């Protein structure tokens, strides 16, 4: 009997603890949202920015500089996913938010639904310095009008451990190389998987012609892996423990691992690799349109972009900012135009294509 009592009291204690945790978690959230809606200072113009947390624009120094320069106040609202941003814009964001950061996965939808202002690039002094490659991407345009400004970019390509690999890797086919059997880490992501296989097969990664061939190619690759990885943390651990020698990796994480002294080499293979861009968009009927232009212009300025990339940020779109870095850094971090022009940027896909690609990848994993 006493034991049953003990169990009961233990269960009760667990329940109470979890309730307390839940309550404190709620409390934390409330505090955050209060900060966002603080109405105490009305004197200054307020610029509402939606971005990821800890992603360049919410750096304390950056905010202070911009606020002083234009006598305003920047308020950040954070998003946890691109879908969330789209929902924010659809449900009351228009006319309330000023600047937002969409990528290719939602940008065409947002433009189509009229959630973003057309961008008058003549108002952006730094627009001319953006690499030409970005002018060719279709996602931020509609009827030859521009609706969003490229900000930073990166790639998903090949990284390897230079202590375990004693050759210069320059081809994507290394992921299919029997020599590295059991030491490869492919990414568990349907988009990355389909695009990478398409690049290896010489198909158009944005619009692959033969999905069956891609499926076969991925099934062929499967037994060569140590494992599939999903989060950057998983990759770091596998790499640090020398469980993998080569695999798919993000440019940003490879750069910061290299900075931390890991023996990691990052290459954009000669066949090409996957690229991504984040864009700043000005929200339709933004309360402070002029200030929004100033903000976007500052975000793509050489000054800001150089400072951020030096602090470990992603690759700048501003060619002047890249040119200000030394040759070695540009080459090592693949920031230059040569790497950039090899990339196939992730294109917008409708629900049907996403479903199809995801199902293909599930089938590969289920084999």
């Amino acid at each position, binding site marked *: 009997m006493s034991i049953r009592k003990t169990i009961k009291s233990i269960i009760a204690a*667990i329940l109470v603890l979890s309730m307390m945790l839940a309550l404190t978690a709620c409390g934390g959230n409330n505090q955050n949202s209060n900060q966002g809606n603080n109405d105490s200072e009305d004197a200054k113009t307020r610029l509402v920015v939606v971005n990821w947390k800890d992603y360049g624009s919410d750096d304390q120094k950056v905010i202070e500089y911009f606020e002083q320069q234009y006598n305003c106040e920047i308020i950040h609202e954070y998003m946890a996913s691109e879908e969330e941003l789209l929902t924010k814009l659809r449900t009351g964001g228009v006319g309330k938010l000023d600047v937002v950061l969409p990528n290719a996965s939602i940008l065409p939808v947002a433009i189509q639904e009229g959630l973003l202002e057309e961008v008058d690039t003549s108002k952006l002094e730094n627009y001319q310095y953006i690499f030409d490659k970005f002018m060719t991407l279709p996602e931020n345009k509609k009827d030859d009008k521009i609706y969003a400004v490229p900000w930073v970019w990166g790639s998903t390509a090949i990284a390897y451990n230079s202590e375990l690999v004693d050759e210069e890797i320059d081809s994507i086919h290394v992921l299919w190389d029997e020599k590295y059997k059991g030491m490869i880490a*492919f990414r*568990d*992501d*349907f988009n990355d998987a389909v695009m990478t296989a398409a690049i290896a097969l010489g198909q158009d990664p944005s619009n692959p012609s033969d999905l069956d061939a891609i499926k076969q190619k991925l099934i062929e690759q499967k037994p060569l892996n140590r494992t599939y990885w999903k989060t950057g943390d998983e990759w770091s651990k596998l790499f640090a*423990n020398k469980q993998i020698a080569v695999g798919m990796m993000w440019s940003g994480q490879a750069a910061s691992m290299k900075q931390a002294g890991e023996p990691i080499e990052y290459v954009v293979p000669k066949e090409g690799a996957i690229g991504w861009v984040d864009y700043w968009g000005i929200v339709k009927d933004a309360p402070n349109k002029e200030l929004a232009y100033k903000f976007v212009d500052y975000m793509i300025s050489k000054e800001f972009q150089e400072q951020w990339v030096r602090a470990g940020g992603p690759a700048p779109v501003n060619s002047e900012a890249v040119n200000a870095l030394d040759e070695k850094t540009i080459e090592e971090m693949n920031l230059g135009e040569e790497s950039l022009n090899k990339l196939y940027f992730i294109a917008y896909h409708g*629900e049907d294509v996403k479903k199809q690609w*995801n199902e293909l990848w599930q089938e590969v994993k*289920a084999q």
Partner: protein
Amino acid sequence: MKKKVLLMSPAMFILFAFAIVPLFIMLYYSFMSDGAVAKFTLDNYINFFSKGFYLKLTWKTIKMSIVVTLICIVIAYPMAYIMAKVINKGKNLLLLLIIIPFWTSQLVRAYSWLVFLRDGGVLAQFLNKIGLITTTDMGILFTSKAAIIALVHIFFPYMVITIYMSLEKLDNSIIDASKSLGAKPIETFRRVILPLSSPGIITGAILVFVPCLGSFVEPRILGGVNGSVIGTVIEDQFFEIYGWNFGAAIAFILLAMVLLSMGGMSLLLNTEKTRSKSPAS
């Protein structure tokens, strides 16, 4: 009497608002078509049964869950028996030790196994030191074995506790009677103790088997390239492509299987009960 029934209402309300209602919302989603205008459709269910690999994965998941459940019974029964019948002191401490893992998150426990099981990891180095293996490579991590080990670790406490409860209820004098009537220990166990503790085993099996069917964290983190189970497919539907409709349909197919297996097991439980009652009457 009525007042006492009213005391249930907060719990019933929470159950209704946060479990029953969302369940029906998901059921609704599972019959909706994708696209801007959602219409009633059976496509989600048809898609599941028309693609062979979904069924293959489901079968793989069921097999994995059965293995986990059996291992749990084998590990938990002796432990529960010793706690209930052999030792007198230290029961509370043992119970506490069993419950402590519940205090850390499932994700953290899965990651701990990652550190523990990897080649050159803690376990490999230990086995190497004591001379059981010659290298520090074990090849367990990133196979389905690793996922099964982690799942057993996470779910076996349910089994220990339910078996312990049923053994604790078992009157010691029945065992003594069996012994004094000349039954050997094995016979006592097979004909007296095991039948009387089977409700605990069956309840434990349900508590292990059902969540195992829906698990996705351990197989994905520890299972390597063959870590796909039906749970990871559902996870990917919801988190990767916002495919709520199809995700909900798979979840309901799984739920239907769970209910069927539960029904089967409770049938088993009832026959056990009537069987164990009839000799007494």
